[in-house]
C-alpha cells in the first residue's frame, strides 16, 4: 500500500482524526506552558524564606541572663500574659542596623512588649551597639553560644517572633523588618492579638 492510497482510505474519518492529531500536536505546547507556569512562580519564591517549624507552638523553655549592667534578662515566663515580640539581633549583623530605626519607632508607639535576643554576640559589643543606635528593648537575653537560638529555629539574623498572650508563637519574620512589613503585617497582627 502506498502513501497516497493510505490517505484516501482515511479520508472519510478525516474530521475526527484531524482534531485528534491536532490535539496531539498541541500536547508539547501545553506541557511547556504548564512547566513554564511552575518555573515562573519559582522566580518569585524566596528560598531563604523557610516556614518556621515553631508556628502555633509554645515558646521553647529557656532562661537567658541579661547583658552586664543592662537588666532584666529574658525567660520563657516573660513571654506570657501579653503580646510580645522577640527580636533576634547581634552587633555583627548588618541587616539589624537596617531595621533598627523601625524597632525604635515600635518602642515609641508602645503597642507591644519588644524583647531582644542577643544572638552569639560579645556583651561589650552588644552594649556599645545599643549605646550608639538606641535601645528599643524591654528585656534582653544574652544568648552567647546560640543554643536558645537553635531552640527557636533561628538560622539567620535578624529574625522576629510574634508571640500571643498565651506564649504561643504566632508568626516569624525572617530578615530585617521594613516599613511595609511593619505597617501591613506587624501592626495589624499585634492589634488583632491584643483583642
Amino acid at each position, binding site marked *: *500500500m502506498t502513501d497516497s*492510497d493510505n490517505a*484516501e*482510505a482515511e479520508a472519510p474519518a478525516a474530521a475526527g482524526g484531524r482534531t485528534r492529531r491536532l490535539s496531539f500536536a498541541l500536547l508539547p505546547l501545553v506541557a511547556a506552558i504548564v512547566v513554564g507556569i511552575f518555573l515562573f512562580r519559582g522566580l518569585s519564591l524566596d*528560598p*531563604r524564606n*523557610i*516556614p*518556621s*517549624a*515553631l508556628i502555633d507552638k509554645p515558646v*521553647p523553655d529557656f532562661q537567658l541572663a541579661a547583658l552586664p549592667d543592662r537588666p532584666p534578662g529574658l525567660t520563657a515566663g516573660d513571654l506570657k500574659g501579653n503580646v510580645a515580640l522577640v527580636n533576634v539581633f547581634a552587633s555583627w549583623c548588618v541587616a539589624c542596623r537596617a531595621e533598627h530605626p523601625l524597632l525604635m519607632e515600635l518602642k515609641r508607639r508602645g503597642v507591644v512588649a519588644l524583647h531582644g535576643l542577643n544572638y*552569639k554576640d560579645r556583651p561589650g559589643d552588644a552594649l556599645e551597639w545599643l549605646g550608639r543606635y538606641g535601645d528599643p528593648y524591654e528585656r534582653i537575653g544574652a544568648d552567647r*553560644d*546560640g*543554643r536558645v537560638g*537553635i*531552640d*527557636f*529555629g533561628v*538560622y*539567620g539574623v535578624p529574625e522576629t517572633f510574634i508571640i500571643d498572650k498565651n506564649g504561643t508563637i504566632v508568626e516569624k519574620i525572617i530578615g530585617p523588618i521594613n516599613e511595609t512589613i511593619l505597617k501591613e503585617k506587624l501592626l495589624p497582627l499585634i492589634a488583632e492579638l491584643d483583642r
Partner: protein
Amino acid sequence: MKVVAVASLLALMVAIAPAWAVFTDPPLADAAAEARAQRLMQDLRCLVCQNQSIRDSNASLARDLRVVVRERIGAGDSDGQAMAYIVNRYGDWVLLDPPFKLATLGLWIGPFVLLLLAGLGVVVIMRRRRRQPAAAPPPLSARERARLSDLLDETE
C-alpha cells in the same frame, strides 16, 4: 625518585582527606557513636548555605548543629530521636531527604505517575496501529485494475 615523590604526595592527600570533611570539631570518644553522628550530619541541611549538609559546611550555624547532633547521640538518643530534635526546631526543610507525607506525595510518586501515563499512551497507540491493517482495503477501481494487469503483464 619521581615514584617516591608521587607516592608520598598521594599518601599525604589520603592522610589529610578526612580533615576536609569534618573540619576541626572534637569527635565523640566512642568511634561507633561518632560514625552514627557523622551519618546524621550528612542528611541535615545547612540552613545558611542551603544545598550543603551540615557535615560539609563551615558556616557557624552548621558547626553549632554538629555540636548538637553529637550531644544528642552522646546523650544516648537513637538516630530517629536525634533527627527529631533538629526537625522540631527547624522543620522538614532541614532534612536533605524529604520525608514521605501528604505534602510531599507529588514529589515522591509524581515521576511514577508520569511514567505510567506515558506507558499507557504507548500501549494505546500501538493497539490502534495494529488494528488498522485489519480493515479491508477498498476494492480497486476499474482504472486501477487495468493498470495492475498492465504492470503484471510487463514483468512476465
